[in-house]
């Protein structure tokens, strides 16, 4: 039971979207997950490039994930 389950809120550490909030949509295998966030394109990402946070959000159909994260957390910790 890895901490990177669907719904887990994370912050990207590497890449041009470093420091931005994102949420795990899907788990591909033990190294890769699909993430999305208000400033993070929906993409496959290595879990080494993610820092998990204690919070989780539900992922339901027709729910705009980016809006939820934007309201609860904001875009990211870097300008």
């Amino acid at each position: 039971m890895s901490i990177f389950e669907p719904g887990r809120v994370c912050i990207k550490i590497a890449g041009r979207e470093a420091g931005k909030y994102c949420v795990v949509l899907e788990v591909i295998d033990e190294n890769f997950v699909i993430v999305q966030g208000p400033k993070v394109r929906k993409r496959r990402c290595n879990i080494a490039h993610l820092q998990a946070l204690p919070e989780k959000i539900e992922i339901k159909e027709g729910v705009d994930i980016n809006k939820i994260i934007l309201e609860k957390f904001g875009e990211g910790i870097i300008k």
Partner: protein
Amino acid sequence: MRRALRSTKIKKIVKRTPGNRLTIHFRKPKPNYAHCGICGKKIVRARLRASEIRKLPKVQRRPERPFPELCPKCMREKIKAMIRAVVKI
């Protein structure tokens, strides 16, 4: 060949032009590698002179990630430290 070009550091390359005559092309030495702001290690990046950098589009002059002046490892450490300052884990 003017005085400044006669130094050994400047490479002379003999070329044949379409007009079938020989010309000399001069190549100036490359600058040093960039170094990381924190650990001071070498950053593997294009070693270009200021005149060549000026011709590049802005995006190609530095990496697109935050803190381009740091090496990728130091950048991650710094962002993790920033996360720990903001979020209680």
